[in-house]
């Protein structure tokens, strides 16, 4: 059933981790290069979303963390129990949750950016 080998999935897991780490540093620096509380003001956050580069960074960050997070959850759940039906349910459940979160987060990014 598995389309990807587990070794490839783990490479994706590590790649998304390193990618997410670099982008998270930029994301946090956006809050810390100015006053923390001011940086969270409505007008400031909207201005962040309207910047195309930053919106793209957020979208990429959303995808990387979702892939890494839900694959991590899949690995933990497969460590706890095994079996063909269980493994299929966990894999598809995690994929569905990942896709759902990416769609929900993208809706916020695209709408706040004024792209849709």
């Amino acid at each position, binding site marked *: 059933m598995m389309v990807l080998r587990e070794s490839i999935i783990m490479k994706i897991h590590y790649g998304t981790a390193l990618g997410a*780490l670099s982008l998270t540093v930029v994301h946090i620096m956006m809050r810390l290069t100015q006053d*923390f509380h001011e940086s969270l003001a409505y007008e400031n956050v909207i201005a962040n979303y309207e910047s195309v580069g930053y919106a793209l960074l957020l979208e990429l960050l959303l995808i990387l963390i979702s892939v890494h*997070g839900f694959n991590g959850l899949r690995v*933990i759940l497969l460590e*706890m129990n095994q079996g063909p039906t269980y493994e299929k349910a966990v894999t598809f459940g995690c994929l569905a949750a990942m896709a759902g*979160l990416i769609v929900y987060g993208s809706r916020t990014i695209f709408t*706040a950016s004024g792209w849709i």
Partner: protein
Amino acid sequence: MERETGAKEGLKGWLNPGKIGKFGIERLAWLLMRLTGLGLLAYFIGHIWETSHILDGKAVWDKSLEMTQTTEGHIFLALVIGMCVFHTGNGIRLMIAQMGYGIGKAERPDYPYKPQSINMKGKACIYATLGMAALAMWYGMAVMFS
């Protein structure tokens, strides 16, 4: 050493403090890696939900921010920072170990059968990661409470 009867202890096996005493700091790192991973995923889902309030206007955004602008909220965010730093540091250690660095050379197993891979380098990295997580939490609290 008592014999392990099976690998299906589930959460009970995870959280059994006797296992940490028996297997050392590496076991604690294994447990914290999973707990921080689950905690960060839960926080991430909450963060995506919270930031979606920006679409409902300034009043709703300000109200949703109030959740984390309290003392309890700051402490919660400091915990998230600590989880993030530990998960990152320990993750990098594991990646380096999987590439074969710092785990010693393979050799014939002799008494007292100490695994090459569980050595002082690994232990030092785990302690350093715990220290960095604590420092990051302290810095985060200093910023949030300023």
